[in-house]
């Protein structure tokens, strides 16, 4: 049968094929949004905690850290959002042919599913006399659980359990049904992105560190570790500038400030400036520019 691969081509459904907007209402839109808490082809978000199920570990693969089984087989997530067209419940997609190459990571015996793939207009209209469902307003729910007692995909913890084709199975970040690739060598990530982003290695991004720092400071994950940045995405760095220091603009501190954790205020310069662990902090260019910090600048790490 034809399996339409949204990852390959397809539009958010509330347009018709020519891009003419034909909305079907918030019930569906809510669904569309839920499904897209994060785009299928954007990187996996940082882990909520560094806790994860027994039997899994984190290994270093060629492009960053990934989750793996105890014996080092890389975990793959089957992105259910790319399989909507398969049927009402993409969690059941991997059967027969699929299971020949993909090994589902089943939950420990006796455990119950606590999440399900969100359904939009999944069912026929209500019987006579019953009012049609009201279109859901934005922010329909502020709770972690849906009325059905299952996790709200927007607010679920990192690791949940879903009813898969072979029984209760691990899901990472609400969308990625967890498998390993049969016959793969430990540490291999050969099938990352297979079938138009349906199969992706589960990249491990450590939880965002808790900072005691000025309000203007944030943390960003770069090359396998967190660095300190300006809230607006510009790089922070330290070092000593000998000449043409135009790119060395100080991270300004409140003159009346008393410092904060490892951060102190220096008033010796023209501008009150933050010191981090005693070193003067400067603001560079945006992280995604070719040279965010000057050659002799040093990045700051939490």
């Amino acid at each position, binding site marked *: 049968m*034809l399996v339409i691969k949204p990852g390959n081509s397809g539009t958010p459904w509330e347009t018709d094929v020519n891009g003419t907007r034909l909305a079907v209402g918030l019930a569906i839109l809510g669904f569309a949004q839920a499904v897209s808490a994060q785009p299928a082809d954007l990187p996996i978000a940082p882990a909520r905690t560094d806790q994860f199920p027994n039997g899994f570990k984190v290994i270093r693969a060629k492009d960053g850290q990934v989750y793996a089984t105890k014996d080092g087989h890389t975990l793959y997530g089957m992105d259910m959002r790319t399989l909507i067209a398969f049927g009402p419940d993409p969690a059941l997609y991997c059967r027969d042919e699929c299971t020949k190459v993909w090994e589902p990571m089943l939950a420990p015996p006796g455990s119950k599913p606590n999440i399900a793939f969100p359904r939009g207009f999944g069912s026929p209209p209500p019987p006579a006399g019953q009012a049609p469902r009201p279109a859901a307003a934005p922010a329909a729910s502020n709770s972690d659980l849906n009325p059905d007692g299952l996790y709200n995909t927007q607010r679920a913890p990192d690791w949940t359990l879903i009813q898969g084709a072979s029984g209760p199975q691990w899901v990472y970040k609400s969308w990625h049904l967890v498998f390993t690739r049969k016959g793969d060598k430990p540490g291999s990530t050969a099938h990352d992105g297979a079938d138009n982003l349906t199969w992706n290695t589960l990249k491990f991004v450590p939880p965002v560190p808790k900072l005691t720092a000025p309000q203007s400071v944030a943390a960003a994950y770069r090359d396998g570790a967190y660095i300190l940045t300006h809230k607006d995405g510009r790089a922070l760095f330290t070092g000593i500038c000998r000449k043409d220091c135009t790119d060395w603009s100080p991270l300004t501190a409140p003159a009346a400030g008393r410092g904060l954790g490892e951060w102190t205020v220096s008033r010796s310069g023209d501008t009150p400036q933050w010191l981090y662990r005693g070193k003067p902090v400067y603001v560079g260019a945006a992280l995604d*520019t070719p040279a965010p910090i000057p050659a002799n600048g040093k990045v700051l790490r939490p």
Partner: protein
Amino acid sequence: MISQRMPKLLAAGAIALGAGSMGAAPQPFTPQAIGDAPARSLPAPPADGVMGFVVSDFVQPIVEGKDACPDGPVPKLREAYIASLPAAERERLTRKENEAELLRAWQMTAFGKNGTNICSQPEMFDRPTFRTVQSKVAWGLDLDEGNATDTCAHDTFTTPNGQTGIDNQEYRALGCKLEWRTKDGVGGDNQIGMKQFHNSGEWTQVILLRGVDSLENDPSVEVVYANTPDRPMIDAKGNYLPGITYSISTKPPRERNVLKGRIVGGVLMTDPGDIKLTQTWGQGGARDIRGNRARWDYRKARLRLEFQPDGSLKGMMAGYRPVADPIISPALGGAGSALVAGIDCAGELATLRKYADGLKDPKTGKCNGISATQRISAVPAYINDINQRRASR
């Protein structure tokens, strides 16, 4: 951006559905828009032979008129259900007091066994094919030049300005949908909707020409057809302003088609090749939050673009689309597409299959592609190609 385009857009929209059109609404589809270049003097190309354009119009062209769909438009699910009923039952159900029952009844036709529905799983539903375009006139190009081996049997069209052997089966299959043309045979919602969509800046395409020595005749021109994340600048009437800079996208969805072409008599035609354009949603960087990509995927495709005295381009793109592409969007919408928009995805897919005329699978002998055409207009712009961007200070 200062712009009063809205009221005009809709004013024009309304008019477009009645008589001609103006302002931001689709231009009335006159032959000279994409017909043969009439003799006229064209400006000399810039010394460096590089010319940039931003695409201001990108939509399936229709030839207006009632003769195309003499039996009227393709019925929506509701109408189709009513039509399927015996006269007496039809009379009963369409009475006001039975409206609720009718609604439930036709909506049931959108659902199948164990939660399947007509748009998410069109394959699992057996629906009649659509009414198709009956007239012999359509816009498009002769893609197979009559003698290709990898096509399937199909009729051809003639353009309003007399070009024959036109392959445009998508138009034949879907040209009677209400989104394509109204009951009265004039441009349907697509014409307005697509323009509005592009004007909103959500999806902007650019065309970059290199090695242009003459706008009249040039045996070899490089054509880059790509996406840009930059929003168009538009005047109070909804027209794109010339002389604005656009940078070709460096991050996904990055689509950059490089084609070879030649100019003959003021008309640029590219050699057959694949053209892929990923449709983006929302303006600026954080696009397409739904996690699904819409890609306009044209195989063996050609651009036919005419240089206009005012420096703009008018023309079209034609090629073979994978046969299921046109219903991807409602398919993703699932039941909602059927219930609210009344779209019969299964019938649509069946129709597309029936009229598929290209991309023949040598093994099965089945055609998996359908010939299709987009109308294109573009205005002069400065285009930064991917290697031409410099860091901002």
